[in-house]
């Protein structure tokens, strides 16, 4: 009986596939490819500046640490102790404390690669042939861990233990929660609420465990406030004014990681900074989809409305208008839903969504 049902399921479960949809998705692919090209070029430009700058900062930091170690100096007043830049020292790795002030990449002795967001803080608690243990207390870190047979690699993130072998994953601490997403391989995540194994493509969010401060930068804090404190390097103008492409790319990444609140904020930032950009209508349309996914129907409707207003003859205008009508209906605003549906039927009398609009009007 189940076999018959499966056959029916296979036969009936086909997506709607028409030229309009095919074209819309293809345009989305083109846009995605274009954005990644722009981002790649921007990264190349950033690296060209950042690498010499990083070397200079590291050299200054080493010089300062050597001076501190020999002279037992204390940090000058007025410097922000939280803005510590990690420096290569002669201390054992386990004692090194690193607080990322700017986005940076680090390569460990075994070839494992860590990419830190600007706010990321990492403390290397143990680095031996049998065990590597890092404590991440803030921000987002992308880990690409080299597989070493017999070696345990553990990231402790505010009460959440992520144990890996060879894999690629991200730990993000934000707004009171720890998120782990796995790109390749498998990790085991343990929190006070239990343990779970995640595979490629899996994501998990769990509240920060306030009862387990030992895994946080508890030991790092005194060091950060100590004599090696440094003011954070000033942000460049480019970093404080991301381009429309960079914001779109960031919003896409945030959507992919499931952080819809951040994606919505990024898209709003884009619309605020670049209201005249040719991609603004598409950004607003995407914002509508994000808000809809967050069950914020009224906000979604407004975003779809803005999208249509920005480009009433654009490639997403028809969809934006239809989605606006549906979203207003979901937001229990039948008058606004009806107005949008009426406008749709006038503008697109034989459009893809004509049936849905008719149902709203009825």
């Amino acid at each position, binding site marked *: *009986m*189940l076999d018959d*049902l*499966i056959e*029916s*399921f*296979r*036969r*009936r*479960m*086909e*997506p*709607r*596939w028409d030229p309009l*949809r*095919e074209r*819309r*998705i*293809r345009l*989305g*692919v083109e846009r*995605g*490819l274009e954005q*990644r090209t722009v981002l790649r070029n921007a990264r190349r430009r950033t690296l060209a500046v950042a690498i010499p700058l990083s070397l200079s900062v590291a050299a200054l930091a080493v010089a300062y640490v050597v001076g501190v170690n020999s002279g037992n100096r204390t940090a000058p007043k007025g410097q922000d102790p939280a803005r510590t830049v990690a420096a290569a020292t002669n201390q054992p790795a386990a004692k090194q404390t690193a607080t990322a002030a700017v986005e940076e990449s680090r390569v460990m002795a075994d070839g494992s690669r860590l990419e830190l967001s600007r706010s990321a803080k990492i403390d290397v608690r143990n680095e031996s042939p049998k065990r590597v243990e890092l404590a991440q207390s803030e921000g987002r870190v992308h880990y690409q861990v080299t597989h070493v047979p017999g070696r345990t690699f553990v990231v402790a993130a505010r009460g959440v233990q992520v144990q890996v072998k060879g894999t690629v994953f991200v730990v993000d601490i934000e707004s009171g929660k720890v998120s782990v*997403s796995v790109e*390749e*391989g*498998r990790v085991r995540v343990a929190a006070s609420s239990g343990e779970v194994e995640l*595979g*490629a*493509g*899996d*994501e*998990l*969010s769990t509240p920060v465990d306030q009862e387990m401060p030992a895994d946080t930068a508890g030991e790092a804090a005194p060091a950060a406030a100590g004599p090696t404190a440094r003011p954070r390097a000033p942000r460049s103008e480019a970093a404080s004014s991301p381009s429309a492409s960079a914001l779109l790319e960031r919003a*896409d990444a945030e*959507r*992919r990681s*499931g952080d819809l609140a951040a994606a919505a904020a990024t898209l709003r930032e884009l619309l605020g900074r670049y209201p005249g950009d040719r991609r603004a209508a598409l950004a607003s349309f995407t914002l509508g*989809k994000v808000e809809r*996914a967050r*069950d914020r129907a009224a906000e979604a409707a407004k975003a779809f409305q803005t999208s249509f207003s920005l480009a009433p003859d654009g490639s997403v205008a028809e969809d934006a208008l239809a989605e606006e009508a549906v979203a207003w209906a979901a937001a229990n605003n039948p008058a606004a839903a009806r107005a949008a549906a009426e406008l749709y039927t006038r503008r697109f009398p034989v459009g893809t969504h004509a049936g849905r609009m008719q149902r709203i009007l009825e």
Partner: protein
Amino acid sequence: MHVPRPGPGQAPVDDLDLVERLRRHDADAYRLLYARHARYLAGVVFRLLGSDQELEDVLQESFVDAVEGIDTLEQAARLRPWLVTIAVRKVNRVLLARRRRKKLATGFALVAPRSQHATQEMSVDELRRALDALDPELRVPWVLGRIEQLELSEIARACSVSIATAKRRIAAAEQCIRRWFDAR
């Protein structure tokens, strides 16, 4: 209307040429890739998701990742299953996010059937509901195996698990689904 779908091992021979063109960054190659595989992939993703929602996002991101990562494809002849693997990873994210949003219990057995009509005839919609209640790590291999009829090795690769684990998960999913219908 049901459109016959070639299996993952039956990708057109000229995919080899297509992969070569993609690797040379031929400007038209990605359009050909899309034209050749989008319809098939849309069907797989649709049946994995169980709905139309987020289908377009998953497809777009899958094709962008495929074009960007074409150099990581080891066997050009396996282009189509490779595309399925990329899409499955994205579908997993969507299903997990969807599951978190709905705050469903993690165990299938803990989720009660929604319909109150015990005599309701078995239907495709009912199977969809059963799949919605299933944990994504069981749901995805089951759909790939029983609906898409992929080979076990392809399912294992797409789900990043061993063949034994894929087999075990399909069996577990089947058991859950049968239990679902038995409870009707």
